[in-house]
């Protein structure tokens, strides 16, 4: 399946054949050529064949590198929908996720041929604060999960904010992602109406080395301080450890749609941009260091006795003041025609679908965001225009239904 592996096999075949004298060499060369041709053919559908596990302690789509494309879909419950209805909806979604994640069309798909594979498709399901009110499930809220306060920098629009249920769908192929999203919404239409859909992207497959921190559309390396996948730090920051059963192994998500004012940002010089962030644009290294992973030294001074990382720098304001203020970010970029007005000329709006995952948003996220809202020079070039929080259910084993303990 993986082309490189088959190429290696082909090489091994050749090496083995080389030990045989005479005609054996020709046979081995044939085998090598055949192996190479097969590997090349497999390479053409390599992206479609890639899958990520859909079952386990945690839902997919969080502790893994961002796929190339994403859609965040928020839905609001239809009136009179009950917990029993929710359970049937979650059964449909769980079955759909199990199929789509292995590259199969959902049951009764009118156009199953559009699912050309999985392309690392993941679906993550979460629930907004209003759902708990509507269904009288407040006693099952995980600790620290509340509607976050509004900040003075916010210019939130309802069409990008709130929502009872989140379906976060990502894949490395936009066509597969689009059809999968439709399938999930078809099985949701009985229970809920779509409130908003926000689409985002990162680099395509084959454009960056593994482990490369992505860049946002301001040009910054964004996400350097994230905990490593599979690390104890990640588990400590992200996964809920105690509380209602449906949430243990789950997490809390805040999605912020952050509009970037790139025209004014681009009128700055590179040095000004780097001072604003506190990192070098070229490689993301902190201004006190040389490479991306060098620790940030907020006390470092230059030959004039001035702080190397200015007081107003984003990294200074965003830095955790203690271990409780750490969380995981998994942002996607967006670029769309602006929704400001119907008049021409249309504006090209760029921004970030910024996400933070924490086991307790109140404790881990809110203090940091409060600090950033008070004073962060970066606010000059960014405006939050959407905001939503969702409690993400734990992962499921085959045979279980997503969030079944919440609704039964």
């Amino acid at each position, binding site marked *: 399946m993986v082309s490189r592996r088959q190429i290696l096999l082909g090489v091994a075949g050749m090496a083995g054949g080389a030990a045989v004298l005479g005609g054996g060499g020709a046979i081995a060369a044939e085998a090598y050529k055949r192996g190479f041709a097969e590997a090349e053919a497999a390479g053409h559908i390599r992206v479609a064949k890639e899958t990520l596990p859909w079952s386990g302690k945690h839902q997919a789509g969080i502790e893994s590198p961002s796929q190339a494309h994403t859609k965040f879909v928020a839905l609001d419950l239809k009136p009179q929908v009950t917990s029993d209805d929710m359970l049937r909806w979650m059964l449909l979604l769980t079955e759909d996720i*199990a199929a789509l994640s292995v590259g199969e069309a959902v049951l009764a798909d009118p156009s199953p041929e559009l699912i050309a594979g999985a392309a690392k498709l993941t679906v993550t399901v979460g629930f907004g604060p209003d759902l708990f009110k509507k269904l009288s499930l407040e006693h099952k809220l995980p600790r620290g999960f509340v509607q976050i306060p509004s900040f003075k920098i916010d210019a939130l629009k309802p069409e990008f904010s709130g929502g009872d249920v989140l379906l976060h769908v990502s894949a490395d192929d936009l066509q597969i992602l689009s059809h999968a999203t439709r399938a999930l919404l*078809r099985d949701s239409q009985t229970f809920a109406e779509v409130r908003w859909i926000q689409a985002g992207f990162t680099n395509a497959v084959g454009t960056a080395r593994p482990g490369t921190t992505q860049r946002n559309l301001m040009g910054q390396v964004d996400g350097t301080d994230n905990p490593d996948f599979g690390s104890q730090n990640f588990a400590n920051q992200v996964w809920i450890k105690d509380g209602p059963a449906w949430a243990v192994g789950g997490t809390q998500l805040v999605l912020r749609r952050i509009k970037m004012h790139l025209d004014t940002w681009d009128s700055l010089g590179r040095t000004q941009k780097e001072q604003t962030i506190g990192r070098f644009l070229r490689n993301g290294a902190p201004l006190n260091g040389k490479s991306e992973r060098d620790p940030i030294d907020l006390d470092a001074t230059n030959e004039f006795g001035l702080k190397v990382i200015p007081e107003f720098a984003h990294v200074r304001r965003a830095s955790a003041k203690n271990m409780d203020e750490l969380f995981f970010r998994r942002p996607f970029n967006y670029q769309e025609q602006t929704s400001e007005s119907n008049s021409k000329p249309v504006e090209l709006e760029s921004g970030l679908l910024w996400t933070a995952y924490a086991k307790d948003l109140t404790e881990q996220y809110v203090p940091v965001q409060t600090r950033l809202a008070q004073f962060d020079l970066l606010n000059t070039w960014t405006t939050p225009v959407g905001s939503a929080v969702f409690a993400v259910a734990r992962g499921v084993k085959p045979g279980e239904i997503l969030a079944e303990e919440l609704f039964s």
Partner: protein
Amino acid sequence: MLRSALVALVLAPVFIFSSVVPATAAAPAEVSISDAWVKASEYSDHVGGMTGIFAKITNKTAKTITLIGGTSSFAPKVDVHQVVNGVMSHKQGGIQIKPGKSAILEPGALHIMLMGLTKAILPGARVDVKLTFKGARAVALILTAKSVPAGAETYTPAPMATPSTTPNK
């Protein structure tokens, strides 16, 4: 494929998830059934209603078998139907499946009908059905009800049941 494992549900507890159960069948399957589902619609969301079952049914035996009907806790009558020129009717003699071949039951064509529902079938409901064959053992399945507009079935000119007056839930 995963969904071929549906047949194994004969041996599995009913709450198990239809599409992801690992195969545990003791005897070699005579019939393999995949992509099976029940349609949830305004015709199925009330007692007395009706609905269709769709699937791909493959004959794994060496002789022709015939799907003749079935049983379900949701309906007293489980019948084999056909749609010809948009008109649905009982298929006399059942559906014959030659050795190694498959019958495709799909909206607007051959299908199995649950008639005179004793319980409403809403989207996401799990519906038990046991399909009976001439020439092969019966196969028990737990199916998921899905609301999918497909097949352009209108149950005309003579509807066998009336749709509910309330919107489909």
